[in-house]
């Protein structure tokens, strides 16, 4: 039972991404510089997914 709770926690953990190229959200006015950490609270998941595979990439998954 305890194991199940841990798994559920992991699944709902917010993924974090490291900024590689300066970026910002014009809707919220938030700006981020390389080295900053962002989440889906800062940008829509669709934009994040696109930036992970962009050439050169804007974000990478934080380790």
């Amino acid at each position, binding site marked *: 039972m305890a194991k199940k709770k841990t798994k559920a926690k992991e699944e709902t953990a917010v993924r974090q991404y490291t900024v590689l190229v300066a*970026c910002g*959200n*014009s809707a919220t006015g938030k700006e981020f510089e390389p080295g900053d950490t962002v989440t889906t609270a800062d*940008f*829509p998941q669709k934009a994040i997914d696109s930036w992970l595979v*962009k*050439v050169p990439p804007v974000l990478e998954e934080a380790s």
Partner: protein
Amino acid sequence: MAVTFSGKDKLMRFTRLYVGGYDLSGDSRTFGNAQSEFNGVDLTGWDELVRNFLADGWLQAGITGYQALMNDATGRALDQLQLSGDSQASQLSLCFGGGGEPAVGDPAYVLSSIQMNDLMGFDSSAAVLSGIDFMPDASQLSSNFAKVLGHVLRGPTSLTATLSASSSNTVDGGAQTTAGGIAILHILATSSGDFAFKLRDSTDDSSFADLASFTLDGSAVGSELITFSGTVDQYVGFDAQRTGGSCTAVCTFIRN
């Protein structure tokens, strides 16, 4: 949403020619041809009635037959056009304003480097520089020079505050592309301008990332070409972060 294009309202009156950071429009009379074409390679056989051909793959670019009044005031037509291409920033942007001064979204014809020849002539009523041709200078071309038709990202309006790339000043390219592009910045006027200029792109017209940055900071008249490779997202906007002063900046952009 990104700007919408204004339609069939491109008049010579609102066409503007910027060369190396100078607006030569007030001295301009006309031009013959803004070239963007390929020649054909004939593939027709003996028994074919209609000529078959393939484009030869070499882009013919350049502005021919340009005429300007012989204005020798500092920064005007003769003053600028007598300079050889390598003694000044030699980028050229021909911007087609839609019913007014060129603005974001209007079409632009762009040469990322120019060499030119000019003939001086006189007609019955005016001294003119006639038959000037602006042609791409192969020795200065970047590897990203692939097209000459693009868009205005910033028109000739004074910047007195920070302008951030947002949905109100982006051009919608229809989709993401992967072959990079070029952009040219002309600083036409300055009053102790101190800015950081860059292009930003976006997949959703809201989440923007830096695409490329200019070195020019708005403190002096001039022009600059930047090139970039890789992914260019669907929406591209001009971004000017102000530290102080003011300047008039024009930016044109081509997506390869």
